Structures are given as structure tokens and as C-alpha cells.
């Protein structure tokens, strides 16, 4: 996937800026890729201040859980499959606090997958404090 140019995502991914969160990886071959090895909150904060677009967290259940624990995720986009697995890796394991979300949209697809979009519910005061 790092070299293929015919994948629908190739142009976006190859050209886009990519950040790998890792404490072991030293170098990354992929173009426009940097490694973030420091404190997760500080690294995310640096990324926030370094641009005005969205930061997309793409895969990696460990990174996801770290970000959930640190309450750094503003929006969740989930694909719900029509399947009761019964066992396996739970996405929300280790989420320490209970909180409300704002449902943005829920959209069915012909494959039976429901695309769910939520925003972290934040009180206006907390929001402005976060931006200071």
C-alpha cells in the first residue's frame, strides 16, 4: 500500500502528511511520514497547533484507547457490522469514564453496515478552556 498508485486512497495517502505514534520505530520509509515518540498529549497538541485541518486517527486499537483515555478524540466515525461476534477485541475496553456523545448521523448501507458519527459532548466552558 505504500507504493501502489492504483488504490483509490493512494493519492490521498501518499501525498498526505502522516504521523506514526511509536516508541520503537526510528525511521519511516513512506513519503511525508514522521514519527511521534513523545508524550501522547503533547504530540497531539503539537499536531493541533501545526495545522488547521482534521487529524484522522486511522486504526490501531492501542493508540485509539490511549486517545480515549486522554479524552483527546473530538469525533468518532464507526462502522457497525451486522454480526454478533461473541468474543474478540473490544473497541471500548479500558474507557475509564462514562460520558455523553452527540449523535451526528447514522447511515445504513446496502451491505448492512451502519455508519455512525458522534461528537464528544463538551460543555461550552470546557471547550474554550481547552483551546487556551
Amino acid at each position, binding site marked *: 500500500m505504500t507504493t501502489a498508485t492504483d488504490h483509490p486512497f493512494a493519492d490521498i495517502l501518499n501525498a498526505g502528511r502522516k504521523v506514526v505514534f511509536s516508541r520503537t520505530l526510528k525511521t519511516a520509509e513512506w513519503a511525508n511520514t514522521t514519527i511521534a515518540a513523545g508524550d501522547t498529549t503533547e504530540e497531539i497538541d503539537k499536531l493541533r497547533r501545526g495545522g488547521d485541518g482534521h487529524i484522522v486517527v486511522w486504526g490501531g486499537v492501542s493508540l485509539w484507547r490511549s486517545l480515549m483515555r486522554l479524552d483527546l478524540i473530538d469525533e468518532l466515525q464507526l462502522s457497525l457490522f451486522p*454480526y*454478533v461476534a461473541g468474543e474478540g477485541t473490544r473497541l471500548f475496553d479500558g474507557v475509564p469514564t462514562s460520558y*455523553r456523545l452527540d449523535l451526528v448521523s447514522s447511515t445504513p448501507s446496502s451491505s448492512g453496515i451502519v455508519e455512525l458519527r458522534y461528537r464528544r459532548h463538551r460543555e461550552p466552558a470546557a471547550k474554550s478552556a481547552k483551546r487556551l
Partner: protein
Amino acid sequence: MTKVVAIMSMSLDGYVADANDGVAEVFDWYFSGDVEVSTASASSGMTFHVSAPSADHLRGLAAEVGAMLTGRRTFEVADGWGGQHPWDVPAFVVTHQVPDGWPRPGSTVQFVTDGIESAVARAKSAAGPKSVGVHGAQTIQQCLDAGLLDEIHIDLAAVLLGAGVRLFDHLANTPVVLGNPTVVTGVGVTHLRYPVHTS
């Protein structure tokens, strides 16, 4: 054919009650709009204020269900619905032992002590052409394991609970493949209804 439909409000992370058996968070959507919906029972009926799509959805469900099937825990938490289920349909409670003082005269709450299959059979016959609604995590799990469910209806609440009572827990016969759901988007809730593919 009488359908057997699991009906449950669930948090995004899969819980139907919080760690203290509380359901306020997953039931928030019952009070998230300005359309009034009342359940049928004169004695134990409840009034909700929901969004327009949720109101249509609730009215459809109430019209469809002809009998309810629950476990002992739901019966206890609901305090026996005062002897009459809020939806004004006969309720069947699966239990090892009939609770003291029950069944009460004039009550439509009945008890089944010989297992889940018998309970489903009795609820089906009471529902007639209508559906049997199954409520309560453990009862739904038993029905799912025994291949007795035709549909799973989840009101997916926009909340993370982090801990509590899981709906899909202790299942013996997984994976369970579901069909494509119907999806109704309310305010703070997504109503999902899946057919269960039984082999």
C-alpha cells in the same frame, strides 16, 4: 407467524445498564424531544417526550407487540409493573421460583418456571398474530443461544458507560450473523432492527 423480537436500549459501548443497575443514561432518549408518547396501560402507563422519528418508531413497536417476555431481574427492577405491563400486554417472566405474593388476582403478569423454550412458546400463543417482545439482557442471551430470536431491536444510545451490564455477554453460540438492519435516526439515539439469520 409470531415473531420473537429482542428489544433493548444499549449504550454505544454495549451496556444496557450502568454498574449500579441504573438505566437513566441509556433511557435518556425517551426524554430527548417534544413529541409526547404514552404507553397503553391505564395503571402502569408512562409518558415519554421523544423526537418525531422516535415517536413513530415507539408507536409502531407498541402496536406490533402482543406479549412481553422478561427475566426475573427485569421484573424485580420494574417492581412487577404493578401487575400490568406498561404496554398493556401479558408479560411472561422466566424464573426458577414464582415470587411470593404472585401471581396476583387481575394481574396479566405470569410466571414460567420450566425454561426459556416453554416461556417463548407461551408468550407466542398469547401474542397470537402479533410479536413477542423480549426484554432483559439475560433473557435475550438465552433466546439467542437457543435460536429462538427472529429479530434484534436495539435503541443505540449516544453515550459511553465504561462499565455495567453487557447485552451481548456469555453467549454460547457465536458468531451470530445478522441481516441488514432498518435504521431510524432519532435525537441521541439510533433505532436499529436486525433480522437474525438462524441456521
